């Protein structure tokens, strides 16, 4: 599903402490591509991701998702938009502590009319043998894989990942990025990854660099490398 961001502005605070965190963002993320949103802390990349995801509203401008504009959606429609089209992966996995891995994934399968096969997904995620364990019994990488599985089970057309490797070590980070790549190939969903890790741009089809609330670079990576080859 195509995402089009049109002149999006966002402010935080008021009066003297009012800060413009997004200063007229324009970009287009094509259907089925992996787009990496790169930038230092405070550049506004997470805010942009949240606006695309409909969990934060733009103060000006709009985001078109396919044929729909999120600006015209009320709260209920935004919920349905997220329910039907989006999957979210966060830096902290936010798994339900007293549900097993499989049940954590089922939590989102419940929201979909046509969810993917859970066992097959668990195998893809390499979690099948851990499916009956609680999150506290698993490593951070395994928990993040589960969080990705939870986001994917609905077979969303857009997968939004906010610093998905931010809490993970080098090796586990690469495994997670490989998984995201694998998912993109298998399910053809549009994936937006927010990161401050410059190396990750090399696996993307499309790179957006942000600084001080503006896109300073927007280019298509003609020769993405596989996640396994990434180094930092």
């Amino acid at each position, binding site marked *: 599903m195509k995402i089009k961001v049109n002149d999006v502005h966002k402010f935080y605070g008021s009066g003297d402490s009012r800060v413009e965190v997004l200063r007229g963002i324009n970009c287009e993320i094509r259907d089925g591509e992996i787009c990496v949103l790169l930038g230092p802390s405070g550049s506004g990349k997470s805010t942009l991701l*949240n606006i695309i*995801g409909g*969990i*934060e509203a733009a103060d000006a401008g709009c985001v078109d998702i396919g044929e729909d504009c999120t600006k015209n959606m009320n709260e*209920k429609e935004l*919920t*349905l*938009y*997220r*329910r*039907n089209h*989006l*999957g*979210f992966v*966060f830096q*902290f996995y*936010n*798994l*339900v502590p*007293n*549900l097993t891995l499989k*049940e954590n994934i*089922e*939590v*989102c*399968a*419940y*929201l979909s009319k046509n969810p993917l096969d859970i066992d097959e997904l668990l195998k893809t995620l390499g979690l099948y043998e851990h499916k009956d364990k609680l999150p506290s019994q698993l490593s951070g990488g395994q928990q993040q894989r589960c969080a990705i599985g*939870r*986001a994917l089970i*609905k077979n969303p057309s857009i997968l939004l990942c906010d610093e998905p490797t931010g*809490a993970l070590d080098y090796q586990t980070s690469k495994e997670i990025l490989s998984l995201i790549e694998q998912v993109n190939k298998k399910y053809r969903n549009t994936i937006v990854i927010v990161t401050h890790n410059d190396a990750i741009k090399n696996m993307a089809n499309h790179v957006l660099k942000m600084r001080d609330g503006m896109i300073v670079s927007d280019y298509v990576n003609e020769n993405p490398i596989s996640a396994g080859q990434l180094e930092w």
Partner: protein
Amino acid sequence: MRNPLCKRYPREFKKNAARYICTFLLLVITIIIGSGFLCVMEGVKYSLDEYLIENKVEDGYFETAFPLDDNVKSKLEEEDIVLSDNFYSTTEEFDGDTKVYVFNERKEMNLPAVFEGKLPNSPNEIAVDRLFAENHDISVGDSIELSKIKFTVSGTVSLPDYSSLFLNNQDFVMNPIGFGVCMVSEEGFERFDESTITYRYSYRHNDQNLSDKEKSDAANRIVRLLVDNGANVQEFLTSKNNQSISFVMNDVGKDGPVIEVFVYILVLIIAFVFAVLSAHTIEEEAPIIGTLRSMGYKKRELILHYITPPIIVTLLAAAVGNALGYTVMIEPFKEIYYKSYCLPPLTLQFNRAAFIKTTIIPVAIMIVINLVLLVNKMSLSPLRFLRKDLKKRKQKKAARLPNFKFTTRFRIRVILQNKGSYIILFFGIFLSSFLLMFGIGLKPLMDNYVDTIDDTLPYEYQYILKVPVEAEGGEKVLIYSLETAYYMTGSNVEVTFYGIQEDSKIFDGFTIPTEQNHIVVSDSLAKKLKVNAGDEIIFEDTVYEKKYTLVVDEICPYTNNLGAYMSINQLCKLLEKDAGTFNCYVSQEKLDIDDAYIAKFMDRKDFLGAAKQMMVSFEEVIAVMNVFSVFAYLVLMYLLTKIVIDKNSLYISFMKVFGYEKTEIRKLYLDASAIVAMVSLLVCLPLEAYLFKMVMEYISSLIEGYVYFYMPVWVYAEIIVIGAVSYFAINALHMQKVKRIPMNEALKNRE
């Protein structure tokens, strides 16, 4: 597909078993008390209503010094009433100091209901009131002696005109141990000496649909007719004013709202406890909620998820509470009524109103309170949950604290952080302490009541006469009853007027007013009517339809009844009676008066006995109340102070990493709760005492007397000690929990 979040419920119940078991038990006990009590109460009401109709309770009675002649009787019957002799013999000597009225067989009204055995049908047989029999270990077949006459107990019964055993209508409480009623056959009644017999006549209107006003008018006409025809009326009471008949009806009816309010307040507190716990869970799970909302979970779905555990607990508690309330708890609750009143056999029915009050309304309270909280909490955006930013209003700056030492400031911060829990804790402590105050404080209050009467009662013996006879050693008194409006109920209360000698040696301690229309009132009357010296009171003679406006000169310390005192000459003048008219003797020594001339005799123990007996019937209720309040203390303190530890477990873990010792951690976190609990306990005491006083005012409004509020210091001390011990027992449990918080928690949770 079933929502997978539902799988959390059994795990949630297992994880927080102590929390759910405690609230469940508190709710079960609350609902048991509500359903069991209301079910029995409604059953008693129903049985009593049926009983009073079927057994034809009287509409009123009067007692005369001598039997009425047939001419007067037929004139009375022209008032469209059935008149029936209801003579009784008074025996003084049963079981030491118990007074017993033995009634003649009843045929037309006030028919007895048999509990066990049968009615007497031979001169040697007697039927004994069921409660009186139980209190004196009398069984069917036993032999008892009354006025030196032997009888065999043929059965136990209840008499509809004595459902409450009031010896005197002005008594503050019933006296089921010091007073009893029995019934014998006509032949049996002939065995009693004429001098012991009181000529009581009961009447019943042929038209049972008369209004209270019509009944009152008819009563006035009856009295006037009696007086006009020369009958010496000693006492006249309509059943509405007769505590022996009306008290149980008022009491049974009045208990209901008190119990309902008790149930609702407790459910409200438990609902708030759940709300605080849910709020804590939401804070703890905020990122998960944010994630689920981001993924498309609707607010409604998550509200339903978080409201389900309290509803499951409430529904389960309602089911168990009702099941126990309607079965095993019936007997104990029945005892409360049947130990106090002489009631007919109980007919229990399923009571829809009680079910709604004890089940539907508590569940509704639980749903509404939790729904309001959850809707409010869930109104935040998913992003706010993800950022754990759940404050509705942004706290711009930390509250400025004076330059206290570090630990004090830290504790204040903990208190501010948990103010929601502490507010609920305050109300929980208030309610539990109030129940405890009621349980502990009722006995000293009653003892004080008895002592005050004992200290202030000016005479030892009171003889109300059938005819004025001369007797040496006593002071002549004219006793007369007038009524006055009572602001609290809107109806009238009866005031006993004492016309006393101007040079009285018995009524001392105040100046007997000699001025016309001036009175001295007893302290209990002044308190009940809230009048002071100099105020005017309007009294009404309902028989002669006359009104008197009298000025209060002084308030005397008497507390035994609602009394007004004036000179006998002034009272005679006021009532337009001949100078020197009297109908009573009071004395410090027993007087030599022929029994034939005495209508009613009372001594000091009669005035004190009823109040003394009250505690006997209340003992079990008080014990249950005390156990329940301590349990409520423990549960509420445990749940609400545990939140403080749960909320801060990460920081406690940090403290351990920093090198804080357990006692230091306790000082920072647990002592904050201890301070709040102890301060709440102390602050609540005067509020509870005030509420207790209000309750006593309310009780006083229901009875023909006035109950003084009295609470000795040791009651307050005992409440504080029980509260403190309960808290420190809980604190010890919390210390164990603090000890178990691992240090690596701080290192694991990096968010």
